[in-house]
């Protein structure tokens, strides 16, 4: 009896093993594709940044940090990115919070993310025409408006998801135990929604500093963002410095992704389809 069971279990084990080996082969074409077209380009970016005249050097880095205007652009972008992100939290949190309490909230959240699917250049241009029609001069203010307008859906969506998944009995328990609504919010709801805020921050901050085109259309003549200057460097064939700047951008991406392991860009799309 015992050997029979052992036999059967061995058979099952070998079958599972076989089917795993045969099936993982299906991933190989894509793994190869990833190596070729995702990893290799990044390696070449690194090579471009560190190799000058076929020799390893930090010349490109030195050039970047000595050129005051590039560093200024980076600082300016970080500042704009922080302001935009904070505004997105301040304006988007109430929206997500209110909608998480409504029974029709899920449907109305869709209305907030629908514009995301209209090409961002079109939305940016129509905000620009709007400002021009009412006579507001383009500058830092209009740039921040445009960025918030473009990226706030990315903040509302993860916030709404987290807020609606919070168990209602927590705040009910808090008020049963005598906490007033404000206390309940700051002691229960808000701390539990922090993962949503974090993922919203990564979804807004990184695209904001690395965007290009939005600042060209809405920033007037003076406000360029880091994405614009990367693009300009490559347009002027300055591949070395351009690569250094891209790597700095990549470092920001990796840092923010370290804090927020899972990005919700895919989730935004999945919610619609």
């Amino acid at each position, binding site marked *: 009896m015992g050997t029979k069971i052992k036999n059967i279990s061995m058979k099952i084990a070998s*079958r599972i093993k076989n*089917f795993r080996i*045969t*099936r993982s082969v*299906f*991933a*190989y*074409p*894509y*793994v190869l*594709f*990833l190596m070729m*077209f995702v990893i290799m*380009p*990044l390696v070449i*970016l690194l090579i*471009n940044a560190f190799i000058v005249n076929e020799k390893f050097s930090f010349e490109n880095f030195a050039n970047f940090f000595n050129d005051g205007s590039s560093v200024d652009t980076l600082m300016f972008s970080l500042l704009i990115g922080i302001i935009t992100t904070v505004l997105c939290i301040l304006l988007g949190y*109430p*929206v997500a919070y*209110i909608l998480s309490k409504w029974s029709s909230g*899920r*449907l*109305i959240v*869709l*209305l*907030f993310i*629908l*514009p995301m*699917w*209209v*090409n*961002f*250049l*079109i*939305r940016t*241009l*129509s*905000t620009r*025409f*709007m400002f*021009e*029609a009412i006579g507001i001069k383009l500058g830092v203010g209009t740039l921040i408006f445009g960025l918030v*307008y473009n990226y*706030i859906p990315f903040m509302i969506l993860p916030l709404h998801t987290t807020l609606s998944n919070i168990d209602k009995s927590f705040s009910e328990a808090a008020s049963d135990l005598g906490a007033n609504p404000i206390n309940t919010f700051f002691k229960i709801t808000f701390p539990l929604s922090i993962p949503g805020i974090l993922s919203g921050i990564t979804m807004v901050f*990184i*695209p904001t500093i*690395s965007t290009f*085109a939005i600042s060209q*259309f809405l920033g007037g003549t003076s406000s360029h963002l880091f994405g614009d200057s990367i*693009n300009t460097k*490559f347009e002027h064939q300055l591949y070395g410095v351009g*690569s250094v700047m891209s790597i700095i951008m*990549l470092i920001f*991406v990796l840092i923010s*992704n370290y804090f927020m392991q899972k*990005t919700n860009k*895919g989730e935004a*799309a*999945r919610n619609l*389809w």
Partner: protein
Amino acid sequence: MVNASHTKKILERSYIIVALILLYTPILLMIIFSFFNTSAFSFKNGFSFDAYESLFNSSNSKKLEDALKNTIIIAAVSSVISTILGAVAAIGIYSMSKRSRKIVENINQLPVINSEIVIAVSLMLFFVTFKFPAGYTRLLIGHISFCTPYVILSVMPRLMQMDSNIYEAALDLGATPLRAIITVIIPIISPGILSGFAMAFTISVDDFIITQLNKGTTTGIDTLSTYIYSSMHTAGGLKAYWFAAFSLIIVLVVGTLLLINLRKYKSKAHIKIQ
């Protein structure tokens, strides 16, 4: 007390309404002024369909048509390839050992988290270094490389939810592994494949930065986004017909998505009631 909660409700409702109005104002203005044949938001030319007519008979109609064709061809080809590549890969990744699976999933995540400008310039350097033919080849490879991760991300959850005994039952009943995959696994994960395809298509249509940097200056290939961008930079700014084109795009996109989602929402509500 009743009064306080009442005012709170009104405040909440008005906040949502004001936010929605703000969000949709630029879009609605675009549509309204597309009927006033202007290149700025003004009523001075009077109500007309001239902007819409000029879509078909202005000197730029040919270029606009080409850009639309390119956008659709590139999106269709790259999303079909991404869907096949991604769905097959997802089945493979699902049955990998835990460690290699984690590695592949992390690499797969790279194009999703990475900033578009970094993807664009790294691809450009790669294509230049290895002398890939300029034009469609570069664009298609680029689009496939940032669309496929989304297909995998939408197929994987379906595979995880699947009861793996079903596949083994098929094997026990005499199906070959390939047949079991085609007749058992694929139908189960097909909703994930479908939504992955839809995501890949829309992401490809929407892409601007990666297309702009990899289309090449001499090929003359433009998609709608890059054409909008370049015509914004030509002297005199945007022509009136762009307003008409934008309005059509907006109505098409928002209308389609709203319809799909309303239907989904309704059927879900229906199930709940039952």
